[in-house]
């Protein structure tokens, strides 16, 4: 009964493998009698062999792995020629008896081969293309991936038309049932094609702007341009529905929509891109939306609400200074309060410690708040920073360094430190002392102000 099945092995298994296992029958059966009650041939055999001989692997597999390590070594030493020679030997893995290894072989070869060909001094586009064409058809599973990468390679080499043709070809490729991932991949391929359509569209647009109005040629060119827009928009619209990072696609799609006056559509795309919870919290999504709204002259409250979210994700972004200006100009008091927090948050990040604009804004804003008697705002912002800002920003070492490198920065920082830490602060003392030496005017005014107003003294009052 069981034997009758032997004639029809699984489709995936090659006949030689089948033959091999049939030949091994005798040995296995011999062990049935002597073994335990229930025989697990695959298990015992392999545990046995791995234990007694060390290597279970066949000689071929051993050689293959050595070959692979040679290739990797050559690639890591940038010996492209040597690597390519080893790779030629490695092609033999395509005929591995182990079906699993045979399955992954094309992908490995493609990865290694494309990397080598990319860097090989004697390789050229034709070589790469020929290699890609071959590899596409070896592993059916990899057709789409290789097509896309091939197209990107061509793009990189400036061969836009070839790349376009390639993408087109890949898009129309069908093989059996499509898996979910393949569907997504096709969408990505389409999106790249849409991006290329967009490039053509924008080229046509610049051409069109040079033409005279209302001529027949203009009309035809405009028609042509519209057709590219239609092609691109369909594909781009599809991809940005799938969660991911699609900055170039979104940007180009929005640009086209804007051109055709579909402001609502563009806003909707950007809002979805920024606020969809399935998407990663991409700061660019918020930045695009903000820039769009700003161009659209949207109300300030709208802008502020967008930037509020960006402030939470990337408190150090340079738009935050713009945000601060918006908040400062706003009529609402809570916005004024947030404006201070935004500045504090910018200066929290280590990459922004010497941002002179931020320090200038902070010094000015602190002064303003002091005059407006909103000391509690400062204290609130300061309470979570007072244990580390003194060492982080206002240490004696930094005072010396800043004064040496950038006197304006040093004065702004000294002013801030004076307000926040009082006149006894090391940073303030050093800068005011140095400033007095060279009779810097700004230092004098700063000193004067700090002597009168700082949060320490105000607390005591």
């Amino acid at each position, binding site marked *: 009964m069981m034997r009758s099945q032997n004639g029809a092995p699984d489709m995936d298994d090659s006949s030689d493998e089948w033959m091999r296992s049939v030949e091994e029958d005798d040995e296995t059966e011999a062990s049935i009698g002597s073994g335990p*009650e229930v025989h697990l041939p*695959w298990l015992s055999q392999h545990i046995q062999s791995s234990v007694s001989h060390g290597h279970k692997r066949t000689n071929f597999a051993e050689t293959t792995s050595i070959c692979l390590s040679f290739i990797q070594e050559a690639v890591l030493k940038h010996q492209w020629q040597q690597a390519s020679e080893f790779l030629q030997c490695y092609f033999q893995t395509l005929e591995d008896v182990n079906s699993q290894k045979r399955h992954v072989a094309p992908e490995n070869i493609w990865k290694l081969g494309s990397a080598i060909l990319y860097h090989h*001094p004697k390789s050229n586009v034709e070589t790469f293309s020929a290699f890609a064409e071959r590899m596409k058809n070896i592993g059916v599973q990899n057709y789409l991936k290789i097509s896309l990468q091939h197209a990107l390679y061509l793009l990189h080499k400036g061969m836009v038309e070839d790349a376009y043709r390639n993408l087109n070809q890949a898009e129309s490729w069908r093989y059996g049932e499509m898996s979910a991932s393949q569907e997504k991949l096709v969408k990505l391929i389409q999106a790249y094609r849409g991006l290329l359509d967009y490039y053509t569209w924008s080229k046509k647009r610049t051409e069109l702007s040079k033409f005279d109005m209302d001529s027949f040629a203009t009309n035809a060119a405009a028609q042509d341009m519209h057709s590219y827009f239609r092609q691109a928009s369909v594909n781009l619209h599809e991809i940005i529905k799938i969660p991911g990072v699609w900055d170039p696609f979104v940007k180009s799609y929005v640009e086209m929509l804007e051109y055709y006056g579909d402001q609502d559509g563009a806003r909707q795309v950007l809002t979805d891109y920024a606020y969809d919870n399935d998407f990663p919290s991409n700061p660019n999504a918020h930045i695009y939306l903000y820039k769009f709204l700003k161009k659209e002259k949207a109300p300030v409250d709208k802008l502020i609400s967008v930037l509020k979210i960006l402030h939470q*994700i990337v408190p150090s972004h340079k738009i935050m200074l713009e945000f601060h200006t918006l908040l400062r100009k706003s009529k609402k008091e809570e916005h004024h309060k947030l404006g201070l927090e935004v500045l504090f948050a910018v200066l929290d990040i280590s990459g922004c410690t010497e941002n002179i604009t931020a320090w200038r804004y902070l010094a000015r804003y602190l002064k303003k708040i002091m005059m407006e008697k909103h000391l509690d705002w400062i204290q609130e912002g300061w309470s979570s920073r007072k244990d580390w800002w003194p060492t982080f920003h206002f240490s004696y070492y930094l005072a010396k360094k800043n004064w040496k490198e950038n006197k304006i920065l040093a004065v702004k920082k000294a002013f801030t430190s004076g307000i926040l830490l009082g006149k006894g602060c090391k940073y303030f003392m050093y800068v005011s002392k140095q400033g007095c030496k060279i009779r810097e005017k700004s230092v004098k005014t700063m000193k004067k102000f700090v002597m009168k107003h700082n949060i320490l003294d105000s607390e005591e009052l």
Partner: protein
Amino acid sequence: MDFPDNLFPTFFLPGPPGLSDSPGSYLAPAWSDCMQLLKPPQDPSVNPQHETSYVTKWGRWTSDTPGPLPFLRPVAEPWEPELTSRDLLFQGQLRRPFGPKATVDVIEQLNQFLWDHGDVAFGPLGRLLQENFNLGEPKKSQKDRTVMNAEWLVQDLSGHQPKGCPWAHLSARQRRFSLRGGSVLGEEVDGLLGGLLHEELETRWKELLLNESRTGGALGWIPGARPHVGQLAYPTGQACNQLNFQKVKLSTTSGPQALGDPTRILLQGPVRQVVTRTIQEEALVAVRSDHHCAVWRVSRQGHPEPLQVLGTEKGATGISLSPHLPGELAVCTRSGAVCLWSPQDGLQQIYKDPETLVFKDPSSWRWADFTAHPRMLTVADRTGVRLTDVRGPPDRGELLFRVGAEASCKQGERVLLAQYLGTSSPASLNPTLHLICTQFSLYLLDERLPLVPMLKWNHALMSPPLLAQLLPPPCPGAPLPLLLGGLGGHLRMLHLSGGSSSTPQLAAPPQSLPSLRDSLPGFPVLEPHGEQLLQDRLKAPLTGLAAVVPPSCPSPTMLLFQLSAAGDVFYQRLWLQPDTGSENADSLQNSNSCTDHADDPGLDSHDQTTATSSLDTAPIPSAVSWNPRAVACCRRWLKTLLQVPPALPPWTPPTFSLHRLRWSGKEDKGKGREGLQAAMAEGRLLQQGDLGPLPSSDPPPAHEPFGPEDKLTERLEASWEGKGAIWWDSQQGDTQVLRKRRSREKRRTQLSSSFSSVRTTSDFSDIDSRHGTPSPLHRTSEASQSLELSQEPWVRSVPRERRQTLRDYLAVLPSPDSGSCSTPQSQNPSSQTIPTSEPGQHSVPRFQDPRTQTLLCPPPGSSSAHCSQNPSSQTPCSPDTRFNSLSHSQNSSVRSLPSRHTPSLAGSQPRKKKPRMGF
């Protein structure tokens, strides 16, 4: 600060790791990162120009020598190579005699394995048998004889199954089925499953053997007050408990120089990690041991002063120094707690969760590092990395990285290292980048865009990457070198480019750097033993990595220091050699030529018959070769290394000296002969156990028993003899046996109490060696010479009544010549060895310490009494006794412990004769 304006398109599809058809999996293959292909062309109207490659633009990192050179003298301790997974997995030829201490639970292993790979294990069979099995449905056609009703079989299987062994209870039906089908059923899957199982077992062993405590590395560089002077901080010693601060002078043209001897600090635990950081001109060194963490401040003069020590009950797994605030540290422990620690403000617990972040993983490894925000920390475990705010509640925070489908991780992929790559120079790289290494790949993540890797590269390192260091750009605008070190010594250098407004990219294909093993050709060829020693030494795991950029070099240079687990520090000088056009070291053509060539090298297809152009088939990368200076350096180092006593003293054939026979014969208690004979027959080292247990009374002056039973001594003795496990078993289990053994020992102790003097002498073997004895071998020969000179007077001075005893004794000497020594007056050379009786006549020049002499004196007469009591069975012990003593005195300079706790039979040494002859 700017955020990269245009990120690479990528899918974001959450899910478990190992989804092989995740569409993201191809978006970050190794090559596309280098090619920057995923970056869509910015402006299509402008023809994209061929970007100049890294090599043409910046040059090529080349090394002075093909391998690293020894920097410091080898440490004076022997190095015993560690176990490898191969050693444990395969029974073949184990390099070490001892077996594995850790074991894998095989049943659990197989259980999980079959769950994980159920599709492979059962799927094909199910499909094969589908048509022939009927699972209890009403039969469609009675005629089909090939369909079997498997209903009962399945019922049997789902019945009683004791845990762990489903086959313990078998029905006759099952048995019949397995016998009939067994031969056919298994074969379909055996290749696949066997391979997977084997791979899995090795992975398990590797996991068990992965010394995660070494994460981060134990080599640190502390820049000094002057730019060309600095210090290396690293541990040495067999227990890694000695922290060294070695001053180093950097030279612009040649290699670094060690200035004087290192400052040594002896710690009470092994040093696992050394972190150094200089912020605002304050240099700090943080050290992690298993249960302690400590911080030192290094003064401008270079003196380390301890600041504070922190004890951790559960054991610390990671320590890092803040790049923002001087003196602030993050410490994490096995209990899952992460603390912010500063010597001024003490400890502040930030996060505590004994569970892992993303999914359940048994590892208790935790890691913490800083971020671009001084109040935010990353907390990492094997499953992911989390951003945690110091000020906020501990449960707030978001995941920065997750082992899952977002980063297209593989199944079984785990985080091994998470490091903050903050740079101080704003133009080079975003200060928000984090490096995350797993056993397969390397990821760069921006903390402003969590979960989406900015860069992924398959590092293909053969060993877990536990060390990483980002270096400043070699010249302004150049990409930043990122060094990655695997535990096995493999090194990779990546070139990260991308300013603050673009995503980080690999500017050039990553390259490998020479490891310690590549230095082997630089050493002279040795005899096999020495060669093995050297190879073991060079193959020792890499435990520390420190790259230093020497100031004011004509061309960009870096010095790469490497610390191996054997305690050796090697260095290598790398410099950026400007590209000289087509004349390149490894025949790499100028990249402009790539479009000109019409004839491709035959790579357009996988047609193997295509011949390769043989024009440039010999790309030898190492234009550098071993220069005489490097070879001399290696030679010097090797010379010192070979002077280091080996871990186990090599077996030397015993030289039979009758003097020794005579001397040691007294210790025999009958059992010794068999033991010795067995040892000789097997050609192995004679052990104390072969000669019977040792006396425990009359301890040496330094030794004090730890109680009435003195189990500690017993245990120490047993383990010294290699019978620790037996001792333990006997302690645990059969007290009967123990009691018997003890009573036997007691009896023996009484009998052999006089041997204590022997033991005492052995205690002073190191004293002796301190007094300038060149080597035990010399000593022996000198001593026997003096004996020969003095034998005649001795024979004459033997009292008459004792001569018979002596004769009896000499008659049984095994020497071939001993037959003729029936009389002491015989001229036979064998009688030369009979000791002198006149104390004054035998010179014992090496005992200058009168105290030693008195200590060596046994109760007069007792030894002679034994001698006459039982002379016949003394002799066999001596050859190996001598060997024992020899090995001990050799060891004594290395290990003082054994000579103290292991009473040896070193009494056979000639100099002890004098006090014995006190009658």
